[in-house]
């Protein structure tokens, strides 16, 4: 009886330990990203046109989301070992300030490869200049997914973090069912302000976090 109790306890500990060891969560941030850009119709050749403090003068301090602009970001997923199953993926989108009322950000998967020289006009400028199907990465089913991966509804006007469930997208990329070209964030509503902190900004650097939980298949 005593032996059986000990064996049962051992089994329980083993099961608990195995469970704890098998599921793992990693956190990636913008510091891990090789590809990011803030593109704008007003500055069709710029890769970093997130903020226009003066007319005709752009910088990367903030990401002011307007219908003519988009923020592009791709997280490499090579830190996840092979043979895993993605159980949860959460993307932390930092928000600096917004207009009053409910503001909406659209998150979509990018379908086309993009790289050096990415801008409103081109998805890459090297080795050859390649244009987006529709400028600003707006081509549905060619440049970007036809549907939102998530719609972020923001009601808090001050600085905060918004957590978005992106499990399906990360799973899709991880399994290889779709190529990982990252996400684009847009705001399609005119005359509102949704200001996100840029990774170039001390408020934004390291705040664009992607938390992925996985376990062996």
């Amino acid at each position: 009886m005593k032996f059986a109790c000990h064996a049962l306890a051992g089994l329980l500990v083993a099961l608990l330990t195995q469970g704890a060891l098998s599921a793992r969560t990693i956190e990636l941030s913008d510091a891990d990203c090789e590809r990011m850009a803030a593109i704008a119709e007003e500055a069709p050749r710029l890769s970093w046109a997130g903020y226009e403090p003066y007319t005709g003068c752009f910088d990367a301090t903030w990401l002011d989301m307007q219908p003519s602009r988009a923020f592009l970001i791709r997280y490499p997923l090579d830190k996840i070992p092979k043979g895993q199953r993605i159980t949860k993926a959460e993307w932390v989108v930092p928000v600096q300030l917004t207009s009053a009322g409910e503001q909406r950000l659209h998150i979509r998967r990018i379908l086309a490869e993009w790289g050096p020289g990415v801008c409103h006009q081109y998805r890459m400028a090297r080795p050859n200049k390649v244009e987006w199907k529709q400028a600003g990465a707006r081509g549905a089913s060619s440049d970007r997914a036809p549907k939102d991966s998530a719609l972020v509804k923001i009601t808090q006007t001050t600085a905060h973090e918004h957590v978005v469930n992106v499990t399906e997208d990360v799973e899709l990329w991880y399994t290889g069912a779709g190529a990982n070209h990252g996400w684009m964030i847009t705001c399609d509503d005119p005359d509102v302000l949704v200001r996100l902190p840029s990774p170039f900004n001390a408020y934004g650097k390291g705040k664009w976090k992607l938390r992925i939980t996985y376990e062996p298949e």
Partner: protein
Amino acid sequence: MKHCCALLLGLIALAPAPGGELVLEPPKENGTIDFSHRIQAPGAKCMAVSDTVNLVAIGHRPSKEAARVSLYRLDSRGQPADKPVVLNLPRPVWCKDRITYPVSLAFHPRLSLLYVWQDVEALKEGTPGEDPAYKELDHLLIYNVEGEQPELLVGVARGPEYAVGNLAGAIVFDQQARRLYVPNARIVKPQLTPAVGFLTLDSTGLPVVEDKREDDKIPLDPRKAYAMRTARVAVVQAAVKAGQAPGKYRGTDHNTMLSAWPAGLGFVPVSDDVVLLGGTYGPVTWDEGNRRARIAAIQLHPTYAAYCVDRLAGHPTLPVIFSSLVRTGWIFRMEHADGYLTLVPQHLMLNGAVLHSYPVVLAKRKQVVVGGVNCIHLIALDDKGLFKPERIDVAVKNPEVEALAYSVKFDRLYIAVENLP
């Protein structure tokens, strides 16, 4: 084996990631390089080397002595002469009690001409608006360096559109040598604003006077070429006397993210319209051909850290810029496409280093060099110009190594030092 494993782990830990941060600790021992020449030039502030006329020019820091540039002839192997030809810059009568000094030097890429950008210390008393320097100081001096003794051809770039009292700034030619980018300009009205600009040059390397650009080719016959330049020099001198501004200065507008002097801390001309420049908080793209998006700035470091500390240089063969932050141990690397900065920067931290110079790229050797405190720092680059975790510190006798230059022709790095070993 144990050591190999430890080393491997160490290298993996230090492996650079694009957009990431790479920290390099000081090497345990100083290294040596066999492709450098130390030149004893006390108080050296700036340097230029010419592969056309085989000269090294060194500008000296402000001092009570006359403002001067030292010129060292290079022999056929790139070895500098022991003693320089000293070039004392002209001292205007009106600034007899004030110190003038060279800020930046550049050789014409094809002609025997040296360009010296000079400045004068700011007024200690009185109203800056009444400073005669805003009317009288020729910031740009152009010398013929063909003969033994340099000959001043013309002095230009005077007037209220040039700020005074700056210790830093660069002059840089565009690829065709038809533009000379100049630092520390200003817009006076409607409000005082820092600016940078360029002067247009003719085929003889002199600033244009007429609205129409003089595009004549230089005659192959040396006598005819000499006569042509002599005539042009006379035209420029007459224009200066008549109160005109040869070179047709064109500068940046208001609202350019240039918010302080010195401005123009390095230039990387990419095309006729687009140039990258060292701005107040980092690199700035000036796209003169685009009225809607003429300026794009990137803050490579937190703005509260410091301003006017970035020193910009371009890779000669890759679309990559490097920015060293003086008085810190930071260097950034970022790609551009046609002059528009793209993707994410790589941030290198040289622990224990205090940088003083512009980055100098040794493309053939896949290295970038920056001057520090009693040493120079060499960092290895990969094929894409990304920093690799390999750092060599070479000891030199100079507490602020500010003047460095590299000759592609001789594959030699010239370092100005206070004393030779």
